[in-house]
């Protein structure tokens, strides 16, 4: 074994991305982006702040914000990849187009992997992280340092994906990485290994997140906040957390066994040696289907908050919504087989899973009607979050109906593996998950940063997302029914061409939607003084997160609130006792910042990169660093710092003075600069 191989494993000059202009361009963008970030941080002297206030922070609000930042960065990359694929299909009628088949395959693999694991997951985990402890009247999650470690593991996975743009080629096996294609015999490169380790890192992080959220919701609720008084978003977060605890291990097992096949020559999923690839498919979808509901339930929670707040009404059918969300969580474990109806298990098994799949439509339908009824006779304001919610309501119903079609094994045999399926899952994931998360972003942004987002650009963006989605994905239903297989790099069928052209136009609109989101952020930051809502309640909110300043103090609540019913803050407002002054203040213990998270993150990247490229010393070093960091952390004696009562009292009184000086505005002025975050309660 040569010295080079010992030091650098399989890494060589041929790993550099010069195989196509697009790959070179993408890699340059990553490198330039990284350099600009580093230069910017150095120029503004922000390294110390970044380290002390953010990277080592264990505050659930900051961790939540960092998750969302990861999600938005990864969204940008994966959306551009989607646009490239749509452009390729638009021009590849009877010719090769501008992407090689291999590059095209990399694109659909990274697009899917990123959108699921590094866009949707961090986005929803970030939102839950920020909102849930505030809604249950807690000062933090149960295990703040573990929370930071989870973030670091997700970030490490995302970092591996970004590195894969610059060094080596990514997997061409799709986001689900089916063997035997992803076995070493057919995918000898490092791509599948990048995929395995990026997923493994993030799935371990997500398991820990689920554990953390579940314990937090069970154990840290404010006095009086019984389960059936919890905001629906908290219910959704609880179900999501439970799903994470039970559904992430199958993914860990699937990727680990695939890794054993690739690294140790085992025969779990190979063609020969007694391997059985159906085991992989079962394991993967045992994770994959609950994962669908991990994605959608938090969005359901967000929409429940949005419909209720922007209709100035309590949720219609609260109990039925709770039962529905729980029913969905349980049923989600009973339908995984519908992802492979065509793989030979026979009609009886298929029909059982087909029926189970259709059953999920029932609780989902209950929810849709409950949301509509919530708006009925409400004081409805068409603010940006509600616009997303309305778009969701209609488009998600369409996506759900195409899902019911696919749940019928007979129909599935006709359209499986066509772009009909692509249309279906984008139809539930974009209006469902993405719109849900964007609604959450607009709804809670003022809480996180103390100013609202620009309303006009928000409307433009919402219109672009909706129109772009419709144009990009409705044609795929038609194309799928015509028989266009998914993941097709080029075709010779003339009838496809008009539809792929329309879809490409939709993709362009989606790119414009992303751009308008960025413009909105810039515009809002520049006008932050006019958009400021320091009093903390810009939307006449109904739950406890709106009862504190914006942004909230590090300890969230100066004194822990008492809850005596559903919609705790709305009750206080209607009783004209919105901000009861506490009789006394106490010292507050908060966890100290910890370097454990960043250490594990660095260790994770080193271990993942080392394993991918067979650089064994680096992988070993990463593993040792991770274990050593955990052990070292267990010897840290001072893990808590105390904010004394006088400081808490001073900060709280300053905010109360601000409350007294701000004008209370009614809902007509919600989007005007007069709205400083003090709501005049609606007469109900």
């Amino acid at each position: 074994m040569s010295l080079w191989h010992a030091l650098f494993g399989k890494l060589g000059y041929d790993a550099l991305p010069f195989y196509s202009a697009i790959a070179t361009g993408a890699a340059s963008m990553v490198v330039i982006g990284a350099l600009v970030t580093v230069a910017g941080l150095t120029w503004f002297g922000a390294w110390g702040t970044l380290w002390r206030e953010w990277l080592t922070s264990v505050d659930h609000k900051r961790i939540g914000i960092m998750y969302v930042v990861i999600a938005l960065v990864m969204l940008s990359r994966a959306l551009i990849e989607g646009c490239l694929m749509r452009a390729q299909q638009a021009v590849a009628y009877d010719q090769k187009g501008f992407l090689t088949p291999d590059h095209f395959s990399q694109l659909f693999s990274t697009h899917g992997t990123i959108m699921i694991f590094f866009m949707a997951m961090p986005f929803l985990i970030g939102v839950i992280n920020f909102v849930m402890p505030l809604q249950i009247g807690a000062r933090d999650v149960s295990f703040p340092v573990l929370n930071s470690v989870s973030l670091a593991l997700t970030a490490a996975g995302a970092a591996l994906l970004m590195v894969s743009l610059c060094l080596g080629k990514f997997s061409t096996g799709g986001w689900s990485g089916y063997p035997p294609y992803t076995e070493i015999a057919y995918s000898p490169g490092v791509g599948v290994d990048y995929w395995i380790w990026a997923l493994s890192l993030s799935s371990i992080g997500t398991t820990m997140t689920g554990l953390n959220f579940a314990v937090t919701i069970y154990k840290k609720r404010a006095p009086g906040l019984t389960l059936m008084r919890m905001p629906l978003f908290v219910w959704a977060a609880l179900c999501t957390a439970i799903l994470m605890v039970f559904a992430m291990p199958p993914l860990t097992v699937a990727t680990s066994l695939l890794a054993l096949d690739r690294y140790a020559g085992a025969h779990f999923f190979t063609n020969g040696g007694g391997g059985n690839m159906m085991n992989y498919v079962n394991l993967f979808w045992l994770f994959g289907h609950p994962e669908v509901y991990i994605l959608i339930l938090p969005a359901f929670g967000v929409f429940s908050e949005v419909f209720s707040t922007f209709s100035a009404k309590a949720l219609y059918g609260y109990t039925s919504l709770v039962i529905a969300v729980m029913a969905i969580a349980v049923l989600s474990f009973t339908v995984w087989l519908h992802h492979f109806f065509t793989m030979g298990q026979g009609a009886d098994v298929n029909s059982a899973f087909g029926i189970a799949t259709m059953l999920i439509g029932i609780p989902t339908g209950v929810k849709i009607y409950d949301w509509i009824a919530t708006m009925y006779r409400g004081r409805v304001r068409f603010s940006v979050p509600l616009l997303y919610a309305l778009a969701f309501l209609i488009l998600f119903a369409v996506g759900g109906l195409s899902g019911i079609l696919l749940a019928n094994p007979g129909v599935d045999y006709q359209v499986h593996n066509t772009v009909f399926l692509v249309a279906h899952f984008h139809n539930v994931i974009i209006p469902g998950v993405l719109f849900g998360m964007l609604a959450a972003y607009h709804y809670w942004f003022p809480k996180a940063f103390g100013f609202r987002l620009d309303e006009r650009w928000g409307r433009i963006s919402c219109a672009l997302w909706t129109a772009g989605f419709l144009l990009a994905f409705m044609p795929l239903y038609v194309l799928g029914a015509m028989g266009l297989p998914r993941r097709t790099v080029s075709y010779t069928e003339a009838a496809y061409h008009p539809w792929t052209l329309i879809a490409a136009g939709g993709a362009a609109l989606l790119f414009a939607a992303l751009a308008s989101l960025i413009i909105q952020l810039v515009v809002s930051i520049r006008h932050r003084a006019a958009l400021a809502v320091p009093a903390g309640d810009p939307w006449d909110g109904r739950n406890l997160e709106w009862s504190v300043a914006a942004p909230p103090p590090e300890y969230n609540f100066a004194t822990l609130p008492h809850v005596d019913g559903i919609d705790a803050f709305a009750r206080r407002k209607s009783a004209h006792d919105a901000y009861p002054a506490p009789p006394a203040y106490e010292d507050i213990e908060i966890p100290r910042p910890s370097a454990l998270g960043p250490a594990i993150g660095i260790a994770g990247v080193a271990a993942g990169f080392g394993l991918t490229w067979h650089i064994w010393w680096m992988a070993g070093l990463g593993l040792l660093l991770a274990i050593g960091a955990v052990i070292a952390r267990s010897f840290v004696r001072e893990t808590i710092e105390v904010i004394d009562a006088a400081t808490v009292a001073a900060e709280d009184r300053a905010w109360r003075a601000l409350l007294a000086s701000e004008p209370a505005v009614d809902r007509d002025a919600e989007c005007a600069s007069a709205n400083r975050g003090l709501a005049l309660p609606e007469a109900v």
Partner: protein
Amino acid sequence: MTASATRRHPGLNLDHGDEAAQLQTEELMFGFWIFLMSDLVLFALLFATFGTLRHALAGGPGPQTLFELGSAAKETALLLASSFTFGLATLSMKHEHATGAVLGWMGLTLLLGAGFLGLEVHDFVSMTDKGGGIDRSAFTAATFALVGTHGLHVTFGSLWIVVMMIQVGLIGHRRDDSPTHAAGRRKLVDRVHNRMLRLALFWHFLDIVWIGIFSFVYLGGLAR
């Protein structure tokens, strides 16, 4: 019984009025139970994988050739004994025996665990020597994955025991040992207790998983 008395954990001696420490313990222990549940799902899937692949020999050697009942029986005995000695470590912590006693039982547990791991390595080497390495067939792969994952858990558990022996040695395990810095010290001792309780759960959990492995992999494989 008062509310706080009913919340008392085995192995922990908290004052009756020490509500904060008890709530914290509750949260930690509950979180660890959830972790164990998640870990159990992982083992369940490895068992299921083994179940589907146990006859997939691909012409290679089967359990009759590869497994040694004697070795597996010794492993079982060692691991069960180690669970017993760890139980004694927990009890001597609860009854505030001398630090040496706690450390002694933990040390014995560690030795038994190391003996188990040694035998397991011997098993793996002998399987490979007999032509049943991990890369031979789906059956050997599934065996190595399931038994190896358990072994990896025992390895991490042993490392954890070492760390805890150091912490018990440095910090002690009795709340009332030192009158100086009493409050801060008590917090540290509480932390040691909490960690010992979680380690105990982990160690006993591995026992239960091993009983599954012994029954299904070894006895199931060798039964005619």
